């Protein structure tokens, strides 16, 4: 591992909502302001800014990070925007890490924002052009196609039922009921509710999917010597990893996310983790769809291939289970403002490891957790391991 240790010392987030009155800049500012306040720092204490935000078309602003910059505290500072689609939120934390680990900066403010309600008639339309313009677009594809084909491949390889997968949606929406910033928390939701929701593209049904959301999240990251000064409870970045599979989704193994495994291996190596099932105490894998949480848990090597659904059914991934998964409520419950949702997962691990997660707090004083996101053309994995 290069350079000095890097810590997360502060975090903040807006409420995740369906339609924010705030401008995207105002959302970014609110999250950034809260993150700074959480560690009693001011913008003058920050050396550099990392901005994470997904497709420009969502907010309807081309060159969105330039537009967002003043809301992210970027006035008069070195700034970078990273972009790996849905993987952006966790990747932004990775960028924050290497800004500090490189020795260039002592303190970095990482801000992720998305305002999807701007995009009409539906943010789906902004994804139309990710499909190949000659072989796929004439078929009038919908983004859900990829997920439906992937989910069906996953279910069939391991003989899984819809019921096996719906438990994830139920768990996360119930967990989110304890999150003050959540949009879709529901303590009473049942598997039957998921199974009875409208079919969008079989096997994907309405309640298998996370919602269109507006929101922002920010982290303050710092070098070791600053972290020691500003907090007595720094949370250390122990490992980071990211990896890209082929851009052709027709040439990928849709039932197993090998790019997540490669990203996890990179992060585990850096963190010195040889037995992730023993050494990871809490996980926030990316869950824009319920099957993706299971898919990713297997890619992260936290369960054998095809075994995550059984573990979920046995309660292992519940907040009080052996491996709490998405105790925040995840994208399915808290909401999915794309880049902000990924960074929310890193923030959740930060709060959990500090014992600051309130009603969401997992028992047993977890010492190490991971956050993972997925995106680009559905072929990038981004992983951050945090520990205390």
């Amino acid at each position, binding site marked *: 591992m290069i350079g000095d240790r890097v810590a997360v010392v502060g975090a903040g987030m807006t409420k995740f909502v369906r339609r924010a009155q705030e401008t995207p800049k105002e959302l970014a500012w609110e999250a950034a302001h809260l993150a700074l306040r959480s560690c009693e720092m001011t913008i003058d204490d920050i050396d550099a800014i990392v901005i994470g935000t997904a497709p420009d078309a969502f907010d309807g602003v081309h060159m969105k990070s330039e537009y967002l910059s003043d809301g992210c505290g970027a006035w008069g500072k070195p700034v970078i925007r990273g972009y790996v689609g849905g993987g952006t939120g966790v990747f932004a934390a990775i960028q924050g890490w290497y800004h500090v680990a490189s020795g260039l900066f002592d303190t970095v403010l990482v801000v992720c924002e998305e305002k999807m*309600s*701007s995009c*009409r008639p539906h943010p789906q*339309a902004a994804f139309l052009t990710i499909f190949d313009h000659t072989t796929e677009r004439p078929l009038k594809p919908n983004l859900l196609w990829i997920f439906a084909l992937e989910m069906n491949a996953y279910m069939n390889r391991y003989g899984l039922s819809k019921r096996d997968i719906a438990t994830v949606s139920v768990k996360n929406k119930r967990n989110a009921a304890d999150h003050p910033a959540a949009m879709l928390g529901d303590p009473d939701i049942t598997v039957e509710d998921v199974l009875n929701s409208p079919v969008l593209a079989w096997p994907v049904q309405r309640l298998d999917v996370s919602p269109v959301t507006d929101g922002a999240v920010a982290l303050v990251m710092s070098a070791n010597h600053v972290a020691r000064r500003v907090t007595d409870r720094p949370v250390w970045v122990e490992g980071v990893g990211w990896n890209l599979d082929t851009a052709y989704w027709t040439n990928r193994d849709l039932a197993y996310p090998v790019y997540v495994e490669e990203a996890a291996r990179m992060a585990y190596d850096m963190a010195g983790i040889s037995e992730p099932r023993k050494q990871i105490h809490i996980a926030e894998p990316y869950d824009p769809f319920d099957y993706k949480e299971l898919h990713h848990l297997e890619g992260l090597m936290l369960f054998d291939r095809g075994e995550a659904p059984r573990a979920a059914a046995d309660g292992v991934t519940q907040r009080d289970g052996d491996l709490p998964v998405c105790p925040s409520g995840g994208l399915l419950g808290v909401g999915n403002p794309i880049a902000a949702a990924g960074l929310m997962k890193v923030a959740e691990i930060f709060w959990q490891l500090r014992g600051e997660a309130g009603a969401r707090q997992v028992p047993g004083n977890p010492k190490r957790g991971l956050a993972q996101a997925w995106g680009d053309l559905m072929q990038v994995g981004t992983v951050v391991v945090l520990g205390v």
Partner: protein
Amino acid sequence: MSLLHRIEHPDDALNWHGDMPTEGRYTAGIAGERFFREIKEKGQFLATVCLDCDITYMPPRLYCEECFSHLDEWVEVGSWGHVHTFTVVHRDLDNEPLSEPRILAFVTLDDADGGLVHYLDEIEPEDVYLGMRVEAVFRAEDERQGSISDIEYFRPV
């Protein structure tokens, strides 16, 4: 290069057309909502002030860009100022000639830092000069929508 450099017409190669069928629905935001409602209801400008940085933000902002603090000090600012710079626009977005050239000016307001880019009217292009005193002309109250177009244009004082 292959065939492409010999293509004289776009249809000489197989090609497809497509668009990204989205439109944006934007909000004015927390600070912007108050700014535009004031224009709509009273025909005047509001600004926010950062007392620490001595900056009067017009249009108003929710936070100070420089010190990042929340701004809740609101002041009324006059709708007059001077031409900081200007241009005379002869073509529209599709490169079609305008029936009449229009003057576009960056107007610095007397009571604020920064200002607005807007049209200038009631004057001929050859008579405009930098530093010229101008004021905003608001539409009639019943025509105002709460948007930047509630200012019809700026004109010489």
